[in-house]
Every structure is written in C-alpha cells, then in structure tokens.
C-alpha cells in the first residue's frame, strides 16, 4: 500500500491511544489526590501527571507551579500542548480525514462522531468535578475505535499499521507511567502494607485497568514488585509491555516479510527481553534503568518503522 496511507493510519491509531492514556493518567492522578497523600504534597502528584504525558519545562513556562486546575487544563483542552487530549484527538481525526476513502465507512464515521462529541466538552469549562466523566468518555471512545477497526477492517496491511500504531504508543505509555510512579512511590516503600501505600499502588493498577487482574492473579497485598511484574512481564495483561510486543512482533514479521530490515531485529530484541526476562534480574539492575532503556528502544523502533515503511524511501 501507499506509504502515505499507512502513515496516516498508523498515526491515527497512535493519537487515539495517546488520548486514552492521557485520560487514564489524569483520572488516576485525580483519584489519588482525593486520598491523604503520602508526601503530603499535591503538587508532586500533578507534576508527575505532566511528566508522564508531556514536557514539564514547557508546562512551567506557560503555567508556573502545577496544581489540579492548571494541569487538568494543560492535559485536556490546551491546544498549544501537542500532547493534550484535544491535540491528540484533533490529530487523529485529521489523519483519518486524509485517508477516509481508504478506511471503512464505520471507522471514519466513528472518528468523526468522536470529534463532534468532543466539541460539546470544549464548549463548557471542564471542572475538576467533571474530570472523571470526561476521562471515562475518552476511554470509551478509544475502546469503540479499536472495536470498529477490529470489527470492520479487512485484515490487510492497513489493519496491520493501525494495530502497530496502537501498541507502539501503548507500550511507551505504560512504561512511562510505571517509571514515574515508581520513582514517586518508592520513598514510601518502607511503610509497606499501610493504607496510603495500598491506595496509591491500587491507583496505578486502576489507571491501566489492572486492579481486578492483580487481585485475581495474586490475591494478596499490593506489592510494588508484583505490580511491576504485572505491567512489564505478564503477557496476559493487555496493557503490559510484554503483551504489547506480543502484538507488535507478528505484525512486523508480516509487513517486513520480503525485506531485510532493522525493524525486525529491533522488535525481536525487545520482545525477547520481555519474553524471557525475570523480574528479579530486572530489579537487580534497577527497574528505573530497565524502563528508561525500554522507552528509548521502543522510540528507536518507532523511528525505524517510520523510515522503512511510512515515509520517503528515495
């Protein structure tokens, strides 16, 4: 298929996923701000939300010290923030519009309807109290988007690139979320078993819809090592890094079938680490280092996909 078409489809999916992840981070941050804080400082919490999704320097330049109100504004409706939900949804729709004739009618109508509905939220000021409802809406539209792609698209290259966009973006977001939250929560690790600890780690789990999964798998107290295992190595946990690469790997094998390509090697290398990795080893070398390195490699793979399939190959 045309590289340009694949590019639009890939980025459409990435932006939808990005909007969903921003909504998840905001939602969990808001919920954590409602329970007595471990550090006693709300600003840290909101700052972390900015750090996971975008750039803290850019934020401070425009808004100063982070608090609930300005972070919510920045991450939802701020058109100057390229990572805001507004910007992500707008980019998703623009990418879709550019290739609307090559996608199924249902997919296009779904994204167009999403944008029209979003307009309703734009018209009224988003209050702190209205945040949860808004985040739920973003999440459910993202679920719908994936569903309509899955349910209506021909299983051809177009579908492959849509899925690829979703999982490259999701892997990045899960890694960032865990990385920031882990740094943020580690100081209180010693009070293991306390109520605060329970709430904060359960909030992290809830943000990636993994709370119930945790209870079912471990049926035990919430422990940072297990939370990390669930979000990094468990292949059956849909937002874990391993699960994302279980999706990415066969897609890359398929689209790069006839070519020698760096993408295949990079994806294979990352997948092997997650597939054969052990949590003890990762912790021994430092979870933080592991996640930083993962985020970097995932980014390099994204650039390689861009270079090999989606843009100028003169």
């Amino acid at each position, binding site marked *: *298929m*045309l*590289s*340009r078409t*694949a590019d639009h489809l890939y980025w459409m999916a990435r932006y939808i996923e990005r909007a969903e992840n921003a909504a998840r981070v905001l939602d969990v941050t808001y919920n954590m701000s409602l329970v007595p804080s471990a550090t006693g400082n709300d600003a840290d919490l909101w700052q972390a939300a900015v750090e996971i999704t975008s750039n803290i320097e850019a934020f401070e330049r425009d808004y100063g010290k982070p608090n609930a109100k300005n972070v919510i504004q920045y991450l939802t409706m701020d058109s100057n923030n390229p990572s805001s939900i507004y910007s992500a949804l707008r980019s998703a729709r623009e990418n879709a*519009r*550019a290739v*609307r*004739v*090559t996608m199924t*009618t249902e997919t296009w109508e779904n994204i167009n309807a999403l944008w029209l509905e979003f307009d309703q939220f734009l018209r009224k000021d988003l209050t702190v109290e209205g945040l949860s409802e808004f985040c739920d809406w973003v999440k459910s539209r993202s679920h719908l988007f994936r569903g309509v792609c899955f349910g209506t698209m021909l299983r051809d*290259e177009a579908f492959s*690139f849509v899925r690829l966009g979703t999982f490259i973006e999701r892997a990045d977001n899960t890694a960032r979320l865990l990385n920031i939250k882990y740094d943020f929560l580690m100081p209180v690790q010693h009070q293991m078993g306390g109520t605060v600890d329970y709430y904060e780690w359960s909030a992290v789990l809830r943000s990636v819809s993994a709370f119930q999964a945790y209870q079912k798998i471990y049926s035990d107290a919430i422990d940072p090592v297990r939370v990390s295992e669930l979000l990094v190595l468990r292949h059956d946990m849909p937002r874990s890094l391993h699960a994302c690469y279980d999706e990415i790997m066969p897609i890359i094998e398929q*689209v790069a079938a*006839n*070519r020698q390509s760096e993408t295949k090697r990079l994806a294979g290398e990352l997948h092997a680490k997650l597939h054969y990795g052990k949590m003890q080893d990762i912790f021994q070398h430092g979870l933080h280092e592991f996640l930083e390195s993962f985020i970097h490699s995932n980014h390099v793979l994204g650039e390689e996909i861009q270079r090999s*399939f*989606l*843009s*100028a*190959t*003169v």
Partner: protein
Amino acid sequence: MQFAFNLINYRKIKSMSDTVDKFFDEMQAKVGDARAIYKAYQRWLKNVPTHQLAAKRAEAELLFRRVGITFNVYGDADGAERLIPFDVIPRLISSKEWAHLSAGVIQRVRALNMFLHDIYHKQEIIQAGIVPYTILSNPQYRPEMFGVDVPNQIYAHIAGVDLVRTSESQFYVLEDNLRTPSGVSYMLENRKMMMRLFPDLFRQYSVAPVEHYPQVLLNNLRSVAQSGVQDPTVVLLSPGAYNSAYFEHAFLAQQMGIELVEGQDLFVRNNAVYMRTTQGPRRVDVIYRRIDDDFLDPLVFKPDSMLGVPGLLSVYRNGGVTLANAVGTGAADDKATYIYVPQMIKFYLGEEPILQNVPTYELSKEDDLAYVLDHLDELVVKEVQGSGGYGMLVGPAATKQELAEFKLRILSKPSSYIAQPTLALSTCPTLVEQGIAPRHVDLRPFVLSGKTVSVVPGGLCRVALKEGSLVVNSSQGGGTKDTWVLERDDTAAEKPTNTSQAIKKEEVAC
C-alpha cells in the same frame, strides 16, 4: 453576421406555459402531447403524487450524503462540502438520437486528437492555412511537447463533450473538455440511485447500461502504456482531499482498483516514476492525472506547485511514463480553437461534421467586436480561458450595470473573449419547489480513446434549477439528472398489467 436560429428575449417570458412554448421540451412536443419515447414515462408520472417524488428525492440525498458524493465549492465560506442537487426525473434519449450523437462526438474527438498530434509535430493544418499560427501563442500550447511522441498518438484519452439541444433535430457542441473533465462519477452514481428508487421503470424501458465505464477506462489506460510493459501499473493522481472533485477521484480509483496517489507519493529516478509504498518503491507506468498541466512538475511549470512531481515531465518526454490526458491538450479545447473544429474534421478525416458548432464571434476581430458590443444584451460572452461558468456574461439575464461593467472588461482585452448567441436550450421536466416544471439541460458524454475510441451510452446531464437560468454548472448551483439512452425506443408492457396477470395465475394455481 446573422444566425439562422432562434434568439430568445428572456424578459418577455412571464409564465411557465410561455417557457414551454418558447423552448423545445424533451418530454412534450407540444403542451400536453408527450414525445413518443416519453409516453410511458408520462403515464407513470401522472399516477405518482408529487410528494412521493419529493420523498424519493429526499431518500436519494440521504444516501448520497452517506456515500460522500459531495462537491467542494470554491470561494464558499460556509459549505466546504456540498451535495449537487439530484433530480429524480430522468432525461431520455432515443436510440436513434444516440446513434447520431455518439457518432458525432467520436468523430470530433478523433479529429481533436489528430489536431493535437499535428500541432506538436508537422503543423500541417497551419501550413495549409486552415488554422492560424496564432493558435501556437495560446498559453495552453506547451512548446515542451513539440516533437514528443505519445503512445498511439492519443492526447485526450478522456474527453467530455458538452452538448445542447435547441429543437427536435438540432444539437450543438458547446465545448470540448480535453484537460481533466469531471462529472462521470455522477453519471454512474445517478444511475445506481435511479435503479434503486424506480426499479419498475427500468423494467419498462430498456435503458443502456453505463456501469462498465470504469472498466473501459482502465482497459484504455492500460493500453496506452509504453510498449514493452507487460502488466502496466496505473494510478490516479489527485491534488488531494481539498480539491473540488476529490470524491470523484477517490470513487474512480476505487472502481478501477488502482491507487489514488498525490504528488508527494511519487518520485522520479533513472528516467522512471515510482510510488512510495510500504513495500518499497514501485514503478508506475500510466498516470491518470486529475491535476492541471501547470501543477504537474515544479521544475518545468509553476515552481511553487506542491501538487506535482519534480522531474515528471522529463521522464514523460523520454517515454518513461504515460500521462492521461497528455500535457498540452488545453491548446485544443479552448474557446478560440473551438471555432476551427469543423474544419479540422474535414482536414484530418475528410468527413463532414456530424455535430455542429455554436456560431461564435471572435472579439479579436474588429467587425465581430463592434457587433458584440452593440448586441451585448442578446449574447453570451465567455472568457477564452474560462471554465466552470466563471467569468461569463449571459446578456439577456444581466442588469444594465452588469452589462456596462462587462463592456469595460471586454474593451480592456478583447482577444480574451468570444461571444455566442443565447441558445434556446431545451428543457426537461424537473422537480422543483413549486412542483414539476421545465428547466434547461445540457449533456456531457464521456469519450474514451485508447486503442479504439468509444463512448459509454449516457453522460452527465446537468440542469439549471433556477427558473429561466441557462447556466448549468454545478459551481453555479446547477443540478444533475440521470440520462437514459434507450436501447429500443418502444417500451415493455406496463407493470400494472403484468402484476394483475401474475396474480390471476397464482389464484388459478391455488
């Protein structure tokens, strides 16, 4: 100069019955008396209440909107995407009329292709003194094409010839569109819609099918690939989603199963054109381009064009790719060249023209200019380079002020204009707000040239929806109708009879 045919003074027309008297109507020879091919249709129409027709039209609009058959209107602030109004009453053309029209447009396009080959090679028609050499100073004449050989010597692979009718037997060619004629998607979609809305009428009439147009087009495009190419790759090059005809581009690409590309998708290397695909560069052999010459290649034409492909013309000139239509066809469809088409037919084919031109005044000639300025309120004045109904004056419909303003424009550059008498365009019954009323129509059949020259039986029928208006262009608020070319002029026995017989048989069987 005096012309033999009917000039109409529109200011005298007061009522609709007047209109019917003054113009040839496709359905009624005289008021109340339907023409033979329309008899069955008129009987059917009498039994259908107007509100039911309106409901059918509403259903059609809903479906068109859902499919996305829309048209972008330039310079329209609010409606970026608009639906071209669709009329549910078809225009009928008898098999005999079509035989005449199709032979006429095919003859014309054959001559025009020979003319194009000639002016880019030996220029015999100029040496013979039939066409003046000034034709070569037309900005649409591309010196870059001189001496370039194109496959099968075909320049205008797709031509849209605009026809109008003024009486039972008189048709005129209004314009030959040889650059990137559009509208064929309406011919196809309108037919699909009519078959869905009125299946019973298709049982009565034997309407010639048009659905194979994309297949014929694709076969033609494949046949004009450079020799030696086994399985040519054909693409459709569009300016992109913001172009007024984008939906047609997407529609045709989809119907032919070829890639819809934009300039940025193509690049030139080693005297060949490639498209960028996820599986690497892929060679392109034939480009059905819906981009004007000026934007094709920024290295040769407009340097700031973002729509084209740098280096494309050089590959084209060297025979590395085929463009359809060829570069430089505009030299043959402009209104100053139009005048000479009947002579071209005689010169190249040794035949008499089957279809006539509208007599035309050239304002570069002093006598013609003087006459036109004196009779501005009777004439239609058009820009030589204009298209889409922009920059034209319909004298009888213009106000005093508009006439005065246009006079100044003509005087500032007379050679940019031609004038024609206001034609008494035929009317066709059309569903409008007040009910069914006659509205002016034209017809654009699409002539396809490859190894052979052919025309699909039908075309884009445009209708001026405003009462008395003669401008049918969609950019000026015109609508479209389905055109039924009949394979047999008689009609099958009507359906009600059939149905009642069928019921009786069943009763017997029970």
